[in-house]
């Protein structure tokens, strides 16, 4: 059998690209560690220039972190407890955002009248920042449910909108292939529509994850429970203990980064079938 020559080159090139994409090669890891150290160095230098008791050095922050981890904070909660609660609320709210946002986005994308007929009622909610809901939820909800509701609000819209706008991008010809062979709606939904929209959904999830973090910290700062990284930071702000506040900031950044990395890993695994464009 005759096979075009340029085709034989494709697999090798593709295999190379896959290897490069998998994991972090040592060189990339080295660059990232160097960049992180550079940030620390600039920070350290800045503390020498500013020279204020309200501007802690990296070492002071590290010491505060160790102290919080071992001895707990002023309310007696250890750092791990705060992290655990923040993560739990975040994941609960975010999961609900996915569970509600994706099916609703698919439904409204596939049955356009459902969206066009309700958009004036639905869309205004998108422009009310989750933070603006805090006063209302303080009155109406309490504890865990309040946080989950606020995070859900933050994560829902990016996921919902990404799914909604992804549906029209499903190619008619891909659907026609299934139709000609006699496929029903369920087959077309699960085997054509969802795989086509999945890249958009994952993109929406990454944006939603960012909004979810933004919301959780604001919600925890607004009071209620005694746990959570946001709560911890406010407690120390009242005591003017800056190193502990910075510990909270760093942890939020690092945890958000790690969760985003997890989503990126999932994307790369799911979308092996896509070209990766680079310049």
């Amino acid at each position, binding site marked *: *059998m*005759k*096979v*075009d020559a*340029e*085709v034989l080159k*494709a*697999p090798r090139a*593709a295999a190379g690209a896959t290897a490069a994409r998998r994991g972090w090669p040592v060189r990339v890891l080295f660059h990232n560690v160097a960049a992180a150290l550079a940030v620390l160095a600039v920070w350290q230098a800045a503390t020498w220039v500013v020279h204020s008791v309200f501007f802690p050095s990296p070492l002071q922050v590290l010491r505060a972190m160790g102290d919080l981890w071992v001895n707990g904070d002023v309310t007696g909660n250890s750092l791990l407890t705060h992290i655990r609660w923040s993560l739990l609320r975040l994941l609960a709210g975010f999961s609900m955002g996915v569970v509600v946002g994706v099916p609703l986005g698919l439904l409204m994308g596939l049955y356009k009248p459902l969206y066009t007929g309700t958009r004036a009622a639905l869309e205004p909610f998108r422009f009310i920042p989750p933070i603006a809901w805090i006063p209302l939820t303080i009155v109406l909800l309490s504890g865990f449910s309040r946080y989950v509701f606020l995070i859900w609000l933050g994560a829902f819209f990016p996921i919902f909108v990404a799914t909604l706008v992804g549906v029209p991008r499903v190619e008619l*010809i*891909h659907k*026609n*292939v*299934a*139709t*000609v*062979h*006699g*496929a029903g709606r369920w*087959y077309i939904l699960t085997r*054509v529509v969802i*795989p*086509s929209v999945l890249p958009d959904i994952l993109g929406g999830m990454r944006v939603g994850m960012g909004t979810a973090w933004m919301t959780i910290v604001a919600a925890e700062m607004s009071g209620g429970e005694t746990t959570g990284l946001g709560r911890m930071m406010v407690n120390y702000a009242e005591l003017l203990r800056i190193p502990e506040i910075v510990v909270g900031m760093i942890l939020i950044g690092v945890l958000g980064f790690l969760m985003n990395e997890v989503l990126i890993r999932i994307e790369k695994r799911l*979308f*092996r*079938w*896509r*070209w990766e464009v680079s310049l």
Partner: protein
Amino acid sequence: MSRTVEVDVSQRFGDLVVLDRLAFSIAENEFLCLLGRSGCGKTTLANLMAGLIPCSEGSVTIDGVPADPRRHELAFVFQEPSLWPWRTVRNNIKIGLEIKRVAPDEIDRRVQEMIELVGLEGFEDYYPYQISGGMKQRVAIARAFAVDADLILMDEPFAALDAQTRTTMQAEVLRIWEKRKTTVVFVTHNLEEAVYLAERIIVLTEKPTRIKASLDVDLPRPRDFGHPRFIALRKRLGELIGTW
């Protein structure tokens, strides 16, 4: 028993009459070419026969039963890229079998058979973006022949390929058709392609589309593009359709 496909349809889009009482039949295992100029409604006819669009009047029947993708085995090879980019070559070929709920080991057996038949051994686990245009069309053809189709429609499947690949693919599709013995309706605007492939050619007029002529092609296979009878037939088709 022969599975005759009977077509008797009219198609209107608003005031525009696309197909005007178009009636013909296709015998079992026949290779029929529908030849017509661009924009004459060939694709509409093919889509209609495959049940992709409902027809305004008339019907398409297979053995007297209205053609229905759920009851009959239909298949379509499109001109545009139609492979699912998220599926490998192997998993693209099995789509039709999967929809008809064929047993998994039977699916594996038939997919393997088709992969060998179209010469894609070693490429089973490649994604569409990793293979050439010609190979993608081979996969689409394998997908169509993998089901025991009552009718396979091919809508200018090689129009987007370069001349050499196109010639190879024409020979390939004949080889597979001879091996699998299936009824094929092949839509094209290319005169040589029609003469090379078809057992019978139906020449269509411009819109509103009617049948202008039906010609039997009794040239021996493999056909030679330079054979005097080949050239004479091509010329006759050119006259029927008007030069372009």
